[in-house]
C-alpha cells in the first residue's frame, strides 16, 4: 500500500493507492482548519504517524497516530524550551516546522525542528519531546540564529541523518545555512563554504546562508545536494566546499527553488522544482510553466520534465516539504502546490498526473510504502 500524506494550511489529508500508484483514495480532512506544517509516516515501523499542527493563532502541538489516522493522541510533552531564570527573556516555540524519523538503528526516535530554530528529540515515537541542548544552547547559537525576520519566523527547516552513521547529522536553518554534527548533537560546525549569499554584505560568509533543503544521499552519505535560497549546490564529503551545479540550469529558468529530491539507487540522479526568484521573488513557476528538472549526472546537465503539466498560465509554488519521492523503482514523485493541487509521476518524472485538486495551500507531502 502506498501512502501519501498531505499537510496543508487548513488540515491534513491521507491518500492511499496500490503499488501501481494509478488511483488514489482520499481520507480527510483531519483537523480541518488547523495549520499542518508536516505530517510524516515512520518508514521503519510503517505505522506511526506524527503531525506538527497549530490552530491559527494558537500554539504548537504534536499529534501521533498508530492506526493510520483513525485516532490521534496529543503529545503530553510537545517541543518546548526549558523555563528561563528570567521568563521575559525565555524562548518559546512558535511552531514545529519539520519532523524526521530517526536512524534505522534507533526505532522510536524522532527529531523535530521548530521556529525559533531549535532541535527537539523524541524517544517514544513522537509522544514526548526533549530539547537538544547541544544545538539549542550552543555557545554560538545566537550568532548562527540571529533572529532574522524571515516569513513565518526563523526556522530550523530540516534535519538529515546519514544512513551509515546515526551520530552523523546535518540540519538546515533559514538564516544560518547548513550545520553538521558527527557526535549526535554534542558539537556542531557550519558547512557553508562555497555557498553564495546574495542578500547580505558578504558573498561567502562562514554562516548566514538560507539552506532551503538538502538531500543526503541514502546510498552514499558523502554525496549531498542542496537547494539553497541562492542556487543549487552539491558537495562530496569529506570535501568541505559546495559547488554550484545550478549554474548548469537553463538561464531563463534559473536555479532558485525550495526542494531537492534524490533517487535512492543513483547518487547522480536528483530532481528540483525551480521557481521564479527574480527581482521581487514571485516564487511562482518560471514563466507560469510548471516543470521539474532532473539530473542524472550529478548536476552537470539538467532535463526539463513537464509532460502533463499546464503549458502556460500556471503560477503555483511548491514549498520545500511539498516535493517528495517514494523511493520505488521506477521512482514516484509528488508535488503539492500552493493552489491546493497534488501532482504525481510514477515514472521518475517523465509524465505527471493531477491526483488531487481544491485542497487548501499545501505545506508538505510524505510518501511511504507500507508492506
Amino acid at each position: 500500500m502506498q501512502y501519501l500524506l498531505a499537510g496543508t494550511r487548513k488540515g491534513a489529508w491521507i491518500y492511499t493507492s496500490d503499488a501501481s500508484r494509478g488511483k488514489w483514495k482520499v481520507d480527510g480532512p483531519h483537523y480541518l482548519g488547523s495549520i499542518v506544517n508536516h505530517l510524516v509516516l515512520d518508514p521503519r515501523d510503517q505505522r506511526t504517524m506524527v503531525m506538527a499542527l497549530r490552530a491559527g493563532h494558537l500554539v504548537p502541538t504534536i499529534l501521533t497516530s498508530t492506526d493510520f489516522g483513525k485516532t490521534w493522541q496529543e503529545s503530553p510533552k510537545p517541543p518546548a524550551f526549558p523555563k528561563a531564570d528570567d521568563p521575559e527573556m525565555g524562548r518559546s516555540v512558535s511552531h514545529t516546522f519539520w519532523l524526521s524519523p530517526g536512524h534505522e538503528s534507533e526505532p522510536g526516535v524522532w527529531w523535530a525542528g521548530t521556529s525559533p530554530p531549535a532541535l527537539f528529540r523524541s524517544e517514544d515515537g513522537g509522544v514526548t519531546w526533549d530539547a537538544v541542548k547541544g544545538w539549542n544552547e550552543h555557545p554560538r547559537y545566537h550568532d548562527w540564529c540571529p533572529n532574522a525576520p524571515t516569513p513565518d519566523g526563523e526556522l530550523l527547516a530540516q534535519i538529515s541523518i546519514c544512513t551509515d552513521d546515526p551520530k552523523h547529522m546535518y540540519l538546515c536553518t533559514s538564516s544560518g545555512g547548513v550545520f553538521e554534527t558527527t557526535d549526535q548533537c554534542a558539537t556542531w560546525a557550519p558547512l557553508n563554504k562555497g555557498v553564495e549569499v546574495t542578500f547580505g554584505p558578504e558573498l561567502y560568509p562562514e554562516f548566514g546562508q538560507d539552506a532551503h533543503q538538502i538531500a543526503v544521499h541514502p546510498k552514499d552519505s558523502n554525496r549531498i545536494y542542496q537547494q539553497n535560497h541562492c542556487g543549487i549546490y552539491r558537495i562530496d564529503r569529506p570535501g568541505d566546499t559546495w559547488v554550484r551545479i545550478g549554474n548548469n540550469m537553463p538561464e531563463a529558468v534559473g536555479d532558485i527553488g525550495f526542494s531537492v529530491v534524490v533517487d535512492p539507487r543513483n547518487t547522480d540522479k536528483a530532481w528540483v522544482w525551480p521557481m521564479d526568484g527574480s527581482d521581487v521573488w514571485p516564487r511562482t513557476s518560471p514563466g507560469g510553466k510548471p516543470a521539474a528538472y532532473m539530473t542524472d549526472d550529478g548536476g552537470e546537465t539538467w532535463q526539463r520534465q513537464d509532460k502533463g503539466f499546464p503549458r502556460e498560465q500556471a503560477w503555483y509554488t511548491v514549498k520545500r516539504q511539498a516535493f517528495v519521492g517514494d523511493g520505488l523503482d521506477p521512482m514516484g514523485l509528488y508535488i503539492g502546490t500552493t493552489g491546493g493541487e497534488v501532482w504525481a509521476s510514477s515514472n521518475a518524472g517523465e509524465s505527471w498526473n493531477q491526483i488531487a485538486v481544491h485542497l487548501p495551500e499545501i505545506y508538505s507531502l510524505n510518501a511511504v510504502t507500507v508492506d
Partner: protein
Amino acid sequence: MNVLIPTQLRSYTGGRSCVAASGNTLAEVLACLDSDYPGIRFRMIDEQDRIREHIRIFVSGDTAERIDIPLTESDEVHIVGALSGG
C-alpha cells in the same frame, strides 16, 4: 469558579463553553483546568508562563497580564482567543 472557554479550545472540554475550576491564583486555576482537560493550558500559556500572544484572559472583566495574580471564589475567568486570518 466559572471559566469561559473559547470555541477553539472546546475540543478539550467536550464542547462545553463554561467549566468549573478552583484555585487561589490564576496559575492555580489554569493548573486545575489542565488537570481536568490535559493539554489545554499549553495552548494558552507558553513554557515561560507567559500568556500567549493571541490569547486574552479576563478575570471578572479585568485583563490579566500575568498568571500569578490572586483570585477569589467569586471571580469569573473568561478566556478569549483571536480567530483572525483568512
